[in-house]
């Protein structure tokens, strides 16, 4: 079915209904420019070594074991077999335990996406039935299974002809947004300012296709490395001018093109100011593909 190998194979189960599925990595992390660690003194590359903190002698892989650190710095040693023993045997079942309306899902928990594909032809009609039912009900399914030596929760949803399973982060790994935003002061926004900001937004409406995005960092870094290699002085970053509360209204007015300020109004940029609906001409169109697939 595809050139890639399945990360996991098993069955989706719901009541008496089940079908064979394979789980395939849907996204991989791209490489970034890598630097090497080198010694300032010798300019040689560095390599990593694992040593005993007391004796400073190299510790072989076979002698490395896990330890749980106590507050006083001492450790309880844990045998690898003991850790393995707490991991339940995988039953290779994605049992759909509950369903959540798509709109109700808290995406902050999203970890990694996987494509779910039927493993054999006899599984296909059931697989298609689940896919179509999920999409008709606008629902996602929650399932749990042992994945990569951990009991993981996955969120399954219909996507095109297939299903996408997203692993979810554990409760203790996610900081709730209410907690993170707790310290942000409540401010009553002046209607005039709000209207101006809404107007600015309307001038910048468009579409965006992440697939067309280009990373400009590499080029900028290449320029920097060249300058440094040639011994030139590197430019210092320009200070950023912050809008003062007293100037906020004026900055909004200038941005909205209602008032010409001191600087040139590069605000509304190349987009035409009157456009309200998402359109795809000029600036937006360069990056947006004309045919967009339906959002999932």
């Amino acid at each position, binding site marked *: 079915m595809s050139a890639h190998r399945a990360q996991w194979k098993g069955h989706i189960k719901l009541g008496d209904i089940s079908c064979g599925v394979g789980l395939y990595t849907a996204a991989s992390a791209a490489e970034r420019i890598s630097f090497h660690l080198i010694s300032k003194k010798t300019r040689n590359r560095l390599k990593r070594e694992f040593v005993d903190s007391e004796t400073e002698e190299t510790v072989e892989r076979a002698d490395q074991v896990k330890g749980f650190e106590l507050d006083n710095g001492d450790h309880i040693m844990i045998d690898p077999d003991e850790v393995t023993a707490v991991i339940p045997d995988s039953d290779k079942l994605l049992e759909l335990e509950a369903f959540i309306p798509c709109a109700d899902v808290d995406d902050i*928990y999203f970890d990694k996406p996987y494509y779910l594909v039927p493993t054999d032809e006899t599984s296909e009609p059931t697989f298609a039935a689940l896919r179509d039912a999920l999409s008709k009900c606008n629902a996602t399914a929650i399932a749990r299974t042992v994945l990569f030596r951990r009991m993981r929760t996955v969120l399954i949803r219909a996507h095109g002809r297939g299903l996408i399973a997203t692993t979810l982060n554990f409760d203790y790994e996610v900081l709730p947004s209410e907690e*993170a935003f707790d310290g942000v002061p409540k401010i009553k926004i002046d209607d005039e300012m709000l209207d101006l900001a809404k107007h600015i937004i309307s001038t910048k409406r468009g579409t965006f296709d992440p697939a067309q*995005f280009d990373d400009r960092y590499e080029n900028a870094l290449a320029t920097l490395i060249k300058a440094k290699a040639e011994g030139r002085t590197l430019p210092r970053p320009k200070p950023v001018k912050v809008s003062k509360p007293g100037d906020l209204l004026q900055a909004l007015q200038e941005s909205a093109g209602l008032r010409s300020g001191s600087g040139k109004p590069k605000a509304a940029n190349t987009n035409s100011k009157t456009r309200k609906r998402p359109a795809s001409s000029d600036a937006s169109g360069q990056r947006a593909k004309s045919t967009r697939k339906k959002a999932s």
Partner: protein
Amino acid sequence: MMASRRPYWSGYLKLSLVTCPVAMTSATSEAEKVRFHTLNKQTGNRVVSRYVDSVTGKPVKESDEAKGYERAEDDYVILTDKDLESVELETVRTIDIEKFVLRESIEWIYLETPFYLTPNDKIGDEAFAVIRDAMKAENVLGISRVVLGRRERAVVLEPRGKGIVVWTLRFGDEVRPEKDYFKDIDETPDADAKTEIERLIEKRTRRWSADMVSDPIQESLLKLIAKKKRALKSSKKPSRSHGEGKGSNVVDIMEALKRSVSKELKSRKSA
């Protein structure tokens, strides 16, 4: 306990001519995961990693470590963190919102890492609130770019509560083409199964709850550690077992575990 995290990034949020100082905090953290250290089985001491010079084999002090870009074989241009700040891209410091899109228009598969964006100085509180509330009122997401981890990332800004959630988006070549996987799937569903599944979906629809993402294996690990601790206590001669401590540490062990467990419970409650 988690709220006091240090920002991952700080800089400016910009809409047209309006600019305000902001800080970005990671929405996820491994801090509360039960984590193990590596020990030397022979001595019971901790195993630490260190860097040695690949040619001389001698350990290298941290202050002598440098980032090097390999210009030619074994020929490096050294770059300090300060040098890297000189990269001429405004997106190193500023999230300038380029455009606004409909909420549903960004596919989930592109969402990579969530961050929380908050005002970082009183001076920008109002500007931040104006940008956030206008996005909320228009029901749109903001699109911008920012340099994180030595890459320029496309980001989506979503107003949420009193703050803004910033998602980095995966690059186009990071998302594998779905047609490679889905193209052979038969379109025809089993009609009976579909009816039955729809019935079950309705019956089993729940509200989202953080209980759905608990970690039973972490709980088992905590229990395992607790059991070992009890064994230590009853033997009263803990040094016998792999030399991890003296008898006087037993109380501390109890406390450490209690704290771990209560941390666990607290985080579950607050979630």
